[in-house]
């Protein structure tokens, strides 16, 4: 018990301490409102609040909302309540503290940290550039070293606006027609009984008009994985603009970058300010224009994010040239596992637009049997032209 934090003498009481704790959680990125403070206090009256383990359990049940929160909660709890007997001066944070603009970005910075640490556990297949031997040759003459370059130099706001338009049209083309729920419609394949009964009342039980219902179209979810390795840097500009546009056009879409590591950039790209979104993305894309590990990254994607975000209504779009330093079996195995989740997989390869292109890269050849669609794309126009083909998937 000696570890329990001592509060300053002018501390106004337990209620203020608890609300101070919730503010502490809020500052650390948990999404909590005023109602939770009330609920937390109510919860503490139902257990023995003087036993740390019990109050920890109670506050955890109230304040957390997902697995990630739960994992961080213990640490946050300890840092607030079990501060080694040190005196905590400020219990109630000032208003300005929580309302400050930086809170938002702080939260997101945390998200970056998390994805960064997750990746650190997967060993890199070597050291960056050295791996891309051979693969970088195709564009070597035109490529600067983008290792330390800011993505903002690459992507212009007008590109994003254009990409947003393309992404919106693509999203509209990708409709799913397999809903089990039905809605009232003028033309449909089933009778709308509720309406029929209602309307037949007016005609003495004779159903004269027969309203119908049909299956409504469902939007498909897009998960885009963009290769930003050395061999792709020539096309990165277009694809990144496309991702940024996609995120702004479709609030269910999901985006990832990969080179030697896989990074989820969905949250960063949702930033209201398009240029700030890119700035945040460049922070994450550390190692940009290095080597490629397509197989390893896709396999990691299939094992982690895909389990949460990929389902039967998802279209996985992979933007890559297929030059992989991982063994091709890894790639085909990862795609096979992805495929089992019921999603459609589309591979857009900038090289396919070349004359006499054949999928000679081992990785690409291994991937082909698992793809629903394999197309060329190296400009925004190409992406826009995909509309009709994707509609038929």
């Amino acid at each position, binding site marked *: 018990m000696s570890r329990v934090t001592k509060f300053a003498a002018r501390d106004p009481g337990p209620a203020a301490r608890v609300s101070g704790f919730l503010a502490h959680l809020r500052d650390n990125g948990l999404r909590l409102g005023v*109602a939770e403070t009330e609920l937390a206090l109510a919860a503490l009256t139902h257990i023995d609040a003087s036993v740390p383990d019990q109050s920890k359990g*109670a506050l*955890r*049940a109230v304040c957390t*909302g997902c697995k990630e929160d739960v994992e961080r909660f213990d640490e946050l709890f300890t840092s607030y309540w079990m501060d080694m007997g040190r005196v905590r001066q400020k219990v109630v944070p000032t208003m300005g503290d929580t309302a400050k603009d930086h809170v938002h970005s702080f939260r997101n910075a945390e998200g970056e940290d998390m994805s960064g640490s997750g990746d650190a556990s997967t060993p890199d297949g070597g050291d960056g550039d050295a791996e891309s031997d051979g693969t970088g040759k195709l564009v070597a003459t035109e490529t600067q070293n983008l290792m330390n370059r800011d993505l903002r130099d690459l992507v212009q706001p007008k590109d994003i606006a254009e990409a947003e338009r393309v992404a919106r049209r693509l999203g509209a083309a990708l409709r799913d027609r397999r809903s089990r729920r039905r809605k009232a419609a003028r033309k449909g394949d089933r009778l709308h009984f509720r309406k029929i009964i209602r309307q037949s009342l007016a005609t003495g039980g004779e159903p004269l008009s027969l309203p119908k219902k049909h299956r409504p179209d469902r939007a498909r979810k897009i998960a885009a994985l963009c290769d930003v390795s050395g061999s792709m840097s020539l096309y990165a500009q277009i694809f990144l603009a496309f991702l940024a546009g996609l995120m702004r056009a479709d609030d269910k879409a999901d985006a990832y970058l990969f080179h030697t590591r896989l990074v989820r950039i969905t949250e960063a790209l949702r930033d209201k300010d398009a240029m700030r979104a890119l700035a945040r993305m460049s922070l994450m894309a550390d190692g940009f224009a290095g080597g490629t590990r397509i197989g390893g990254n896709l396999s990691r994607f299939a094992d982690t994010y895909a389990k949460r975000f990929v389902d039967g209504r998802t279209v996985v779009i992979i933007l890559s040239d297929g030059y992989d330093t991982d063994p091709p079996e890894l790639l085909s195995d990862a795609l096979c596992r992805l495929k089992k989740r019921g999603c459609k997989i589309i591979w857009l390869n900038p090289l396919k637009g070349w004359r006499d292109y054949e999928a000679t890269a081992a990785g690409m050849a291994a991937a082909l049997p698992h793809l629903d669609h394999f197309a060329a794309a190296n400009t925004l126009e190409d992406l826009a032209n995909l509309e009709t083909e994707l509609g038929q998937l």
Partner: protein
Amino acid sequence: MAWTNLQSDLAKQDYVASDDLSVALHLALSLGRPILLEGAAGVGKTEVARVLAAAKDTRLIRLQCYEGLDASQAIYEWNYQRQLLAIRAAGETGKDVETRIFSEDYLLKRPLLAAIQEEKPPVLLIDEIDRADEEFEAYLLEILSEFQVTIPELGTIKATSRPIVILTANGTRDLSDALRRRCLYTYLDYPDRHTELAILNARCPDIETHLGHQIIGFVQKLRAEELEKTPGIAEMLDFAAALMGLGVADLTADPAVLQATLTTLLKTQSDQANITTEVAQRIAGKAA
């Protein structure tokens, strides 16, 4: 303490609840809040509801969610055939027949409506909420906060009792923040060795101590392997039952029998291919 009472009530029903889960359930009961349980498949999320209903001696009403689940399957639906017959049979028109056919007699109650109309608060289990689509989630929010259902033809039906609501999810998709906020939350993980042994002893009381330890050790080691589908608690219990049924006293005794009983633990073809007889023997050897 009240939550330890709850924990021992659950234990009487052969359910070993961790302290965290017990505190959370106790709070859900005393604050009247729904509780959201998340965790991998086979850690006993659904079982909590069944056991809680048994412990409270009340009804369990279960709503299994699936893609495309809509109000007519979850809340209520008019019995159209009966309505049609009633209109024809009566031969009357206008107000009379309208009030008659849109009365409760002609209403088919689905789980959510049934749950709020019970005399004694039932346990309402909304299973795999993440399989239902977002529209349904939004509808659920309304019911969970107000505990009332509005039927246009009939008016608002208020809850006669507030059900104990348990939602489960295993991450098919992300749930909305709004839903998470309304619920208390507990993440159920695979149990540790000690807890799992307690579960095994509760469910299979006549298992021998030595074999029990071996089974738990084996399953825990197996979870650490790279598997497509990690075996849950239910699988562990099946495994134990299979071994007891075959009269096995020691896991390492007969490799062929062990391999044959692995079908209760490994549920995909590639997992079965990965855990060969040698691997199984190695794990069993370590577990002993």
